[in-house]
């Protein structure tokens, strides 16, 4: 005997406003409460710890330098690195260096997207293609793209083509794989929903499949960006030449060629800052928005 219909005589429904009130009460009781965290508390929780960690790191570095157990040319003073950093920033050279590298990374990443998206769609939706190149695509992800540099230099010489080839080789597999797993992980109920509300063919892709695959695709893009940035730096460090201009990698190589340790470390920091900066300024906000809208990352 189920209790829910017991007290009401069959065939005698509740009065309309009575049931409306009951329903409104249920809604009020059952609605999940959303806890909004104020921005300053979020900053305290996520912004402060890395700043403290960074300050500690500088402090330890300063201590090691002051104790002079390692020769100066191996570990320079934090201040010397700062000076070297201030010099490139001061004379404006940093802008052209950053522009050279970041524009390459962006153009490379954009080309990678253009190639990887159709490729990922093919692998995800066409069984033969998946069987043929799916394993290769996953395998290429674990191949360090530096391995392509010597071959690319032989093919294209010391030109931008070499750089772009290495960047593409590094990022395409990640982006394509991200899209494939994004599509694979679509809950089967969504395509069925699409079918029963009248979507077919392109409309299904546009309204159901692509939005449903978006979180996985974004994760792939994020990884693809990291890989393309890494590959770019590797290519710039190894392949230096007059046709290539001075990017961050060449800048680092220059410091190392002249035994200028502060410059080397300043370059490493710049590379790190750009990598983290792009992730924080571009990918993180997009990803956060996508996940929050879907209720997938309440705390993020």
């Amino acid at each position: 005997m189920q209790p829910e219909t017991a007290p009401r005589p069959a065939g005698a429904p509740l009065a309309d406003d009575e049931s409306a009130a009951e329903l409104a009460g249920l809604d009020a009781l059952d609605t999940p409460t959303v806890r909004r965290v104020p921005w300053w508390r979020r900053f305290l929780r996520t912004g402060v710890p890395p700043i403290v960690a960074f300050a500690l790191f500088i402090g330890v570095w300063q201590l090691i330098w002051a104790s002079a157990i390692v020769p100066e040319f191996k570990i320079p003073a934090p201040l010397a690195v700062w000076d070297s950093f201030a010099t490139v920033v001061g004379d404006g050279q940093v802008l052209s260096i950053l522009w050279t590298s970041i524009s390459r990374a962006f153009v490379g990443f954009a080309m990678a997207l253009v190639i990887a998206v159709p490729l990922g769609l093919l692998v995800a939706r066409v069984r033969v293609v998946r069987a043929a190149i799916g394993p290769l695509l996953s395998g290429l992800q674990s191949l360090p793209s530096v391995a392509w540099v010597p071959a690319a230099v032989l093919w294209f010489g010391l030109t931008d083509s070499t750089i772009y080839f290495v960047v593409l080789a590094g990022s395409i597999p990640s982006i394509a794989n991200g899209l494939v797993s994004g599509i694979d992980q679509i809950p089967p109920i969504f395509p069925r929903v699409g079918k029963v509300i009248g979507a077919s063919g392109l409309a299904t892709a546009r309204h159901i499949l692509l939005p449903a695959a978006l979180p996985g695709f974004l994760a792939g893009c994020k990884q693809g960006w990291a890989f393309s940035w890494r590959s770019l730096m590797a290519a710039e460090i190894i392949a230096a030449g007059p046709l290539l201009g001075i990017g961050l990698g060449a800048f680092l190589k220059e410091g190392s060629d002249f035994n200028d340790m502060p410059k080397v470390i300043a370059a490493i920091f710049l590379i790190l800052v750009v990598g983290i900066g792009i992730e924080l300024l571009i990918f993180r906000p997009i990803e956060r928005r996508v996940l929050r809208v879907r209720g997938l990352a309440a705390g993020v």
Partner: protein
Amino acid sequence: MTTTTTGTETTATRTPAAPGQPEAVRLEGVGKTFGSGSDAVTALQNVDLAVAPGEFVCLLGASGCGKSTLLNLVAGLDEPTAGTLTRPAGSPSFMFQEAALLPWLTAGRNVELPLQLSGLSRSARRARAAELLTLVRLDGLADKRPHELSGGMRQRVSLARALAAATGPDGAGGGVLLMDEPFAALDAITRDALQGELLRVWRATGTTIVFVTHDVREAVRLAQRVVLLSSRPGTVVGEWAVGDDRDRLHDEITGRLRQVIASHAA
């Protein structure tokens, strides 16, 4: 099996207008077999069923009676392997056990999507969606995301979306709504409230409803007609029109259902 056609021949055509009472859905000798040869599993066999426009029919049965298979056939998600199936001209709409709202859209946009797919203009579909949300008592919540709603509210958004798909752009013609145990995952209090809501919405819209459940009490409360299916393979073993004495009917159907289930004891 009387008539046998291949699945593709049983396309959706409007019911031949029998005088007075053209059916919204009609199944004649419908069967569905999955697989072939020795592995073949017959889910449905020789099912005859006719549902009149505006009628509320509950399909009742224990596990394995092919209730969901039957709904999938009527919805056009699957094709029968035997018999003829006549569906209404527009595609019937479907409500699942889970609300299955698209999490990247707001409640309002979820309801709008079927209207958008049928080519309705932006302002028209927005107005229609607001109307449907009001009908399920969710007015003003169009901008909420599915995860911000309770289970019962989500299932009502799902009902509004199904109605949008069933009744078409202008809301004319009741349409056919297929429901696959839509309240089974809800708690008892919410389920009770939503059953009441569904009856109210059904009366307000004149939609034809085919509702699958394994809960006799739910079937007797909601339906005008209860159809009992046997299991493995599923076929119709009993039909009751629901009158005033629902308690007696509940006991009668429960007794028959027990017999059907007991007959499966090997």
